[in-house]
């Protein structure tokens, strides 16, 4: 519940990692996530998949934004990254590292 109330700044400085038991598979332009704990599936578009790939439990969300801004001219904005992370958190597929 505490994570539900995270504001953008606290998310940017936080470090997240996928929870154990989440597996993924590329399918066309989507990344499919399966949470094996409850068998729920989630479909990530290209931007969300990039963000997911950078969740390693070591770098902050701000650092992830830096990487994406450097790699892609039209990469996701910080707000978009924060929104994606918040969705991951509410879906229960990531945890604070």
């Amino acid at each position, binding site marked *: 519940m505490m994570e539900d109330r995270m504001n953008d700044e606290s998310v940017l400085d936080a470090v997240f990692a996928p929870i154990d038991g989440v597996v993924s598979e590329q*399918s066309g332009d*989507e990344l499919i996530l399966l949470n094996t704990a409850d068998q729920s599936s989630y479909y990530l578009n290209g931007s969300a998949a990039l963000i997911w790939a950078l969740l390693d439990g070591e770098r902050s969300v701000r650092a992830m934004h830096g990487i994406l801004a450097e790699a892609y001219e039209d990469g996701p904005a910080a707000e978009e990254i924060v929104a994606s992370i918040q*969705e991951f958190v509410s879906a229960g597929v990531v945890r604070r590292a």
Partner: protein
Amino acid sequence: MTRARRPARRAAGGDASAVVGRLLGLAANPLPSPAQRQLLADVFDAPLDAALFEEALMRHRMGPLLHWLLKQHGLQPPRLVARMLASLYLTYRQKVAARDAFVADMAGALAAADIEVVFLKGTALCHTAYAEPGLRPMDDIDLLVPRGIDTRVAEALASIGLETRLPETRAERLWHHWPLAAAQRSGTIQFVEVHTSVLNARLGRYAGIDTLQRPFQRFTIGGTPVLALHPEECLITQSLRFRHLTDPWRVLLIADMLGLAMREFERIDWQRLRRMAPRIRQVFRAFQDVTPLDPTLCAALGLDPAQPVGDVGLLDARYLGWPVNISLQGRDLNLPKGRLALETLLPDPWWSRLAYGVAPGVLGKLECRLLRHPVNLTQQLVRYAYHS
């Protein structure tokens, strides 16, 4: 991020069933080929009933293999279908990891007790017939042990937490495997059947471990050596499963045999196989009606590689007579009595070829309807009545 939703159910029409059946049939060959790619691409040009497709995928357990094949072929199905397939692929990939760890434990425990063990059916085929074990969904772990050492086997399995119940009644002792056992592993329940022969007597081939063709096929799970049937013996016993009238018919059984045949092609003495099981050629000929076969396999079996894939209406081309899928009767099949009698006495010609290895000509039909099918039906009814 989008949360998964199930497609709404719709009544399936004949054309929709044909498209789904053709798709599953084409995918029943785990060895990708250009011919398979072209035919799969053509099928996706037709509209697909998502609800019917999902139901058929689950029934025939073809989701992970179809996902993998489409990926190998670089084909992108409609988004809803792609999501369904990828989810099934992930689900089974995760399940196989937990199951395989348990299989390796069982193999290790029995080896430590100096007990020979051969793993059967999906437990072995997922490793021997497919590129990845997760492509082959399965329920139970099936293993074959020697007869007459039940207590030693039970003790070895108990050492890794699998409590088995030895056969007690006369009917249980006559059955080809012990009562189903279960163990909790990695948060999932693993079901285990300890066999003392490969098949039951209803299929006419009691085969204890001491009578089997050697050397056994060998594969490893996490470094643990595991044995499976010799590929020729496996093809023969798997081909007999098509005539099992009370087990669900699954397209996956075709994929098992084609995958094993191609992956173990060089180890198989095809002349010997055809001498041991002369009807197996017709079984593969039935496969050829639903999926393209490799030309080298056709040559080994004396089949025409140019034979086009037919339109057998795969979802309905199965045995629909009594006592098919007894446990499902009523909700799976609820045929009028007249139709049930007809389906019982005059089974589908394509299924007859698959199950009995008879060609669909006049002589083949007579042989099937007057000899092979009545004998099989009687054997299975007698055994079923006795054991139930």
